[in-house]
């Protein structure tokens, strides 16, 4: 019996070690890949003026769809930011998804909105629309007021009302760089036949100073949880998504800032209402559909258009957000599980799906299981302490190495944080996150499995502080 137990322990140990080396090798490989990709992108776009796109005769117009639910704190700044974007032709559709705060009232007051009878093609079924408003002050702005039906439903309502061939889904708690739309729409102009989706980098706006819907000064927030998230976002966007995009395996274009071809989105029935990870779900279903149709396509990640969004500043808010993201990830992957290791779906089936399922979906569960088993070993007195300490240190140092590499990419390409001390603080948080923060996130993400089996479909409201707005000194 004891020999049998020892054998199981031995197998498990080896499995955890192999998993650890494999996942970290992937992340390191992604970062190296990203480094090449970012250098290439930077060189290809050198001497290219984004303003040139403004004068292009065939620039495809874009409908920006911004679903809003109880966003009274940020809505005006956010809409102003969207209206002031540089682009030849765009409209901004704000979908008030049955907010019970002053979101709609603020919009009506600020933009002098008038209720109109607007005819549109109802391509996707949504919750009833209570009214459509236009602004005599801002002809680009359309506000749709509808009964609450979750974010996907609001996006679908926006899709129905939109007029243009491209749509950009964006959160109303976000602010885009003025040229972000020009940059993210570039692939649609360069390769209009094949490009069906593109996304840019999402950065955290906490602590930044915003004026007239524009980021005026980038500052590192004081909140520790947000600092941890900054390093996470750097790794995810500059390290992960860039490489996955190069490997034709990107499955997530952030719902905070993504641009897609409307016709393809409509062909797959728009956003799925019964999922909470509607952004990932849309991309996964698009890939599935286009593979099945045998249509050549590309979904790309562009490393420099920046969208600034507010991150949760409390543990509770963070827990809700990550739990929701993970539930969304599990739902989307299961919904399209047919693609898993299916050569018919190319790189998506043979690489992206296995990677996301094994490392992204089950990663937190395995990590948590590792902690539990370790606790059991401690209890049974079976721990080889010197080895465990080395392994633990290695995990921390490897994690730090990956964070440092992501910071290096940030430094090479974006340099959003102006002071050297900012970078040193971010690096410090990259080390500190290995103690408790990382374990907390693994727990929250692993909990998503249990929440899903209990049929949890809650969106989880985030407490917002609103943007820091520069005061006028005139």
């Amino acid at each position, binding site marked *: 019996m004891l020999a049998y137990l020892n054998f199981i322990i031995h197998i498990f140990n080896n499995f955890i*070690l192999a998993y650890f080396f494999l996942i970290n090798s992937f992340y390191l490989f992604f970062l190296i890949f990203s480094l090449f990709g970012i250098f*290439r992108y930077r*060189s*290809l776009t*050198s*001497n*290219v*003026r984004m303003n*040139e796109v403004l004068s*292009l*005769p*065939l620039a495809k117009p874009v409908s920006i769809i911004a679903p809003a639910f109880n966003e009274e704190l940020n809505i005006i700044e956010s809409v102003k930011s969207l209206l002031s974007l540089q682009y030849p032709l765009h409209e901004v559709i704000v979908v008030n998804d049955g907010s019970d705060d002053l979101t709609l009232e603020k919009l009506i007051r600020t933009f002098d909105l*008038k209720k*109109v*009878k*607007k*005819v549109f*093609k109802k391509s996707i079924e949504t919750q009833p629309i209570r009214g459509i408003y*236009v*602004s*005599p002050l801002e*002809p680009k702005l359309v506000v749709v007021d509808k009964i609450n039906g979750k974010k996907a439903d609001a996006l679908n309502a926006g899709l129905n009302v939109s007029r243009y061939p491209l749509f950009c889904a964006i959160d109303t708690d976000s602010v885009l760089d003025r040229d972000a739309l020009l940059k993210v729409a570039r692939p649609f*102009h*360069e*390769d*209009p036949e094949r490009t069906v989706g593109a996304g840019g980098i999402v950065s955290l706006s906490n602590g930044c100073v915003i004026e007239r819907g524009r980021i005026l000064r980038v500052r590192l927030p004081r909140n520790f949880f947000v600092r941890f998230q900054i390093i996470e976002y750097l790794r995810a966007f500059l390290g992960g998504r860039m490489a996955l995009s190069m490997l034709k395996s990107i499955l997530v274009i952030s719902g905070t800032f993504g641009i897609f071809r409307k016709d393809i989105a409509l062909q797959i029935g728009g956003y799925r209402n019964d999922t909470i990870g509607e952004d990932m779900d849309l991309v996964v279903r698009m890939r599935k559909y286009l593979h099945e149709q045998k249509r050549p396509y590309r979904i790309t990640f562009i490393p420099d258009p920046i969208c600034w969004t507010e991150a949760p500043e409390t543990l509770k808010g963070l827990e809700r957000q990550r739990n929701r993201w993970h539930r969304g990830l599990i739902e989307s992957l299961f919904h399209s599980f047919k693609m898993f290791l299916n050569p018919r779906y190319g790189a998506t089936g043979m690489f992206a799906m296995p990677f996301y399922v094994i490392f992204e979906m089950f990663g937190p569960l395995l990590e948590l299981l590792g902690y539990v088993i370790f606790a059991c070993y401690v209890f049974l007195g079976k721990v*080889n302490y*010197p*080895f465990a300490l*080395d*392994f633990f*240190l*290695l995990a921390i*140092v*490897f994690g*730090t*190495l990956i964070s*440092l*590499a992501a*910071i*290096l990419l940030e*430094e090479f390409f974006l*340099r959003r944080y102006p002071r*050297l001390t900012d*970078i*040193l603080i971010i*690096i410090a948080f990259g080390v500190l996150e290995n103690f408790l923060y990382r374990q907390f996130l693994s727990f929250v993400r692993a909990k998503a499995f249990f929440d899903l089996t209990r049929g949890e479909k809650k969106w989880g409201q985030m407490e917002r502080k609103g943007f820091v707005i520069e005061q006028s000194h005139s």
Partner: protein
Amino acid sequence: MNIFLRIVVTYSLLFCLLFCICLLTFIVLRRIIIQYQEAMFKTRYLQAEQEILMAISLGKPELAIQVAQKYKSQVKALTQVLVNFMETISGNGREILKIIFDHALKERLLKDLHSHLVIRRLRATRLLGLFAVSSETATFLELLHDKPLVKLAAVNALAHVPDQDTLSLVFQVFEKDSCPNIYTYTSIIFGIGNKIEPLIKNYLKKSLSVEKMSLLIELAGKIPLGSLYPELLDLASHHEKEIRIKVAKAFGKLLIPDSYETLLKLARDNAWEVQAQAIKSLGNLKNPEALEILTEALFSPFWYVRYNAREGLLKLGPQGIRRLEEVSQQKIDRFASDMAEMALDDLRYSR
């Protein structure tokens, strides 16, 4: 096995730790150096900018040569100043910029054209393209067989040379390109302006692919090239729907009164896409005679036709608005009345 693992983990730990320290040092040092370089760049840029401005305002080529010699080693700052000036300055000033470019950067960039690095070739092509003159078109010819990105940059550079032979070359590349990036070609050819009229005229008679033909027709409308009206008229009855759409679109841009009859025919085309475009163009013509067909189109089963009809009626002024009011009050076709009402709403709030 345990000892082996222990060794692997310990060595990995040491290696990663060392690597981390190196990376951290590199990030910090790099940041310090870059901040210093940026400050230097700013100073050099401002100096170069002032001296080049002086050379331009005095219009002395010898001064331009002196500036070129002085800043020859400061490639980044000089390139930036030249590119920025090239975009804002026209006339004789450009000659001075060209002299500076020729003496300071050209030789280096010509070498870069033969580099094995695509990026370097691309950058050199773009910069040389900015300052190219007719006698230098040969430089870009061999790049027309390069990778697509470089090839397009070369075509773009050629398009900047307002020489008829060069433009013919651009069109030849366009004709032969088996997988053309229509979007980029449009930008390039559109940038040439009305100098391309004879070439488009010639190429419209050739048997090109539908997408290439569509591009040329669209350009004829966008530039606009009214003298191509007879050629476009011939294509209005083309068997390809895409071509008929583009012809209708071009007529809507050219605004030639004679095109009214052809547009009327296209408004009754079998394909709704052609109808929609023809209705839109009829609206652009602002011909009061189109009132009836535009009203009729408001009752079309196709949303885009109805939408374009409403836009057209709005463009016709009081007559069109009256017609929209009538349609909004009728009860036979709810879709038509909704569309008319929406137009009136938009009109009310856009005032």
